[in-house]
């Protein structure tokens, strides 16, 4: 695909020393450089990953035994809510925006993102939003405790922590909309000569689709939480039944945002995995065009299935059947992708470096998550399973083993390009295997708990669920601690290690491997010509 001959970017390295940008702290605050901003996004998301992870471990500690040991039930609810919000909006989404900032301009031969200052703003909106979420735990009444889905009537009743969460969501929404505008403009306007849309690496394509999804649905979420806000303080009754509103309507609006949102989280990961699988199979991606169409189809279909999250709210059978079939239909384009990845590996010259391990782990576990999603798509089953740990297991297979594993794959894949050093391969593989084993230990047993009827978001449980919960808690601590290996590996990789060549992976293709490692501060100031 990207067999690019390039006009050599000879003088770009020379620019690195130019002191025309502030040093020290001001460099980071005022930067408009896509690599600086990408790095900040990635560090921010890793920090939030650890914060959200600590909340998850507190939750799992409480669930180690039946009864109440560590936290009060109100605080437990705040933890589940903030864990969800922080992981989705603070960790996973910014991680992939970070990848986009770093890699999109390199991959399409652009010198930077289209709107540098907006890029800076969209990053710097994140820390205040994160601060709002985290500090809301310390205000009277505590943080939002209605679950990350923010269903009324709970959201209408809670204290000021809910207002802080709503405001944080507004800010996060602004940030991701601006980031998406930037990405779309960059892709449409700044591609190198000859880099047609259908020659773009799949990571660019997946981000293009994702960016459109973000622009389409984040404002809908903003509308929903604004309506909640006015219901709380300004006497409106959108969702307040006391004033003639309809709490169920919130769920419709929320999931009209929420279902595309889960694809916003996973689709960039599809792009990363596509490139990693192709590189370490030393083959071009099988069915490139069908991959592009499948991603676009998933994006479009994601708008048509929202009510499968709410089968039990009281819906006519006609509607339930429609949403059931539409949901199952999404398995078709998703299946196309899974088969294409498998076909790419088929008879490839495989090698199993850390990025490849995470990508293959992604394919395995994401498929498991996809299948449990199909199970939950069936109305008759969902009526039984909804709000149990089966649902928790399902979406962690897609969010953790899906989105997070693909982010790990991407991080290891591009670390040499970012830092100029090779990471510790052995440590990376240990990180993968520990993550893989402990992830399954944490979440696979939750399928059994859910089928047996253990409800989610409850700090206590019946005695017979104890064994599986203890396995899950031990797995969660193993998984959490394994991530410190990742942090250690990254820090040592930044500080030193074997020098990475411009193209550290034998099978890699694409313009990003034509610039030296580490990528100089300014790249592609003269655009390459792609033939």
């Amino acid at each position: 695909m990207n067999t690019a001959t390039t006009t050599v970017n000879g003088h770009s390295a020379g620019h690195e020393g130019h002191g025309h940008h502030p040093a020290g702290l001001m460099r980071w605050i005022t930067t408009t450089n896509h690599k600086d901003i990408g790095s900040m996004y990635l560090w921010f998301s890793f920090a939030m990953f650890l914060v959200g992870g600590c909340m998850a471990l507190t939750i799992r500690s409480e669930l180690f035994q039946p009864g109440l040991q560590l936290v009060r039930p109100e605080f437990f609810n705040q933890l589940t809510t903030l864990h969800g919000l922080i992981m989705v909006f603070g960790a996973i989404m910014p991680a992939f925006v970070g990848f986009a900032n770093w890699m999109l301009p390199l991959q399409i031969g652009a010198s930077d993102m289209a709107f540098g200052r907006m890029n800076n703003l969209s990053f710097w909106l994140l820390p205040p939003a994160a601060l709002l979420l985290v500090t809301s735990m310390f205000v009277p009444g505590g943080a939002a405790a209605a679950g990350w889905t923010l269903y009324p009537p709970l959201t209408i009743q809670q204290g000021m922590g809910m207002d802080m969460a709503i405001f944080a969501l507004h800010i996060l929404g602004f940030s991701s909309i601006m980031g998406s505008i930037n990405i779309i403009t960059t892709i449409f306007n700044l591609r190198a000569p000859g880099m047609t849309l259908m020659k773009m690496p799949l990571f660019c394509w997946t981000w293009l689709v994702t960016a459109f999804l973000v622009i389409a649905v984040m404002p809908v979420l903003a509308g929903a939480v604004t309506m909640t806000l006015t219901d709380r303080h300004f006497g409106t009754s959108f969702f307040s039944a006391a004033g003639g509103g309809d709490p169920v309507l919130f769920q419709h609006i929320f999931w009209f945002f929420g279902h595309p949102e889960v694809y916003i989280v996973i689709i960039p990961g599809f792009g990363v995995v596509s490139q990693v699988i192709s590189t370490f199979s030393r083959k071009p991606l099988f069915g490139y065009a069908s991959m592009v169409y499948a991603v676009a189809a998933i994006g479009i279909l994601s708008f048509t299935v929202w009510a499968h999250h709410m089968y039990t709210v009281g819906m006519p059978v006609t509607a339930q059947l429609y949403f059931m079939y539409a949901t199952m239909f999404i398995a078709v384009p998703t299946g196309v992708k899974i088969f294409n990845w498998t076909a790419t590996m088929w008879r490839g010259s495989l090698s199993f470096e850390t990025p490849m391990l995470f990508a293959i782990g992604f394919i395995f576990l994401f498929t498991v998550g996809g299948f449990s999603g199909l199970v939950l798509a069936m109305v008759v089953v969902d009526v039984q399973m909804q709000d149990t740990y089966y649902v928790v297991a399902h979406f962690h297979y897609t969010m953790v083993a899906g989105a997070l594993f693909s982010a790990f794959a991407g991080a290891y894949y591009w670390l040499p390009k970012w830092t100029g050093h090779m990471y510790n391969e052995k440590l990376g593989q240990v990180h993968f295997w520990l993550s893989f084993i402990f992830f399954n230990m944490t979440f696979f047993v939750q399928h059994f708990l859910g089928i047996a009827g253990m409800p989610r978001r409850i700090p206590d449980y019946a005695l017979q669920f104890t064994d599986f919960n203890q396995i899950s808690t031990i797995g969660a601590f193993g998984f959490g601690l394994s991530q410190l290996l990742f942090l250690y590996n990254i820090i040592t990789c930044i500080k030193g290690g074997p020098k990475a060549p411009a193209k550290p992976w034998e099978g890699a293709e694409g313009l990003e491997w034509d610039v030296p490692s580490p990528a100089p501060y300014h790249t592609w100031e003269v655009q390459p010509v792609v033939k």
Partner: protein
Amino acid sequence: MFGFGYALIPLYPVVCGVLGINQTGVDDRPVNTQVDSSRLVTVEFDTNVHNMAWTFKPLAGHLSVHPGELVQVMFEVTNTRDVPVTGQAIPSYGPPLAAEHFRKLECFCFNKQTLAPGERRQMPVVFVVDSALPKEIATITLSYTFFEVEGNRRAESSSGSAHNVKEGV
């Protein structure tokens, strides 16, 4: 799209109305297709006690039902004595041909009834008149007679059999 979020508020009821899928709150209980609504049969209730100090009466003397329709009626019985008394109700039908088309699903006559001194009790009968009921039968009389069950006092002579008694069910 922010405005679209707000537009969804009025939009959802409209879309549901247009597509005819807004059935929540509408009675969607299954319709009994076995009811023959073209016919009406009058069911009369007759109550007797045989040598007992009980009063026994239906709450409604008669009603009209469609064949196939599930109907519940209530009877009231009172023990006027100052000792507990056990009784058993025996049903009979007129015309006798109606008996095989009169399906009782629930009846106080299925069990012995023991009433405490002075106790008043309301008891249900749930029945369906079979739609195979011959066309010429327009009125069914259901007659119950309470007999005291032997135990507290010796049974009377078998004068009860003078009635055309047919065991129910």
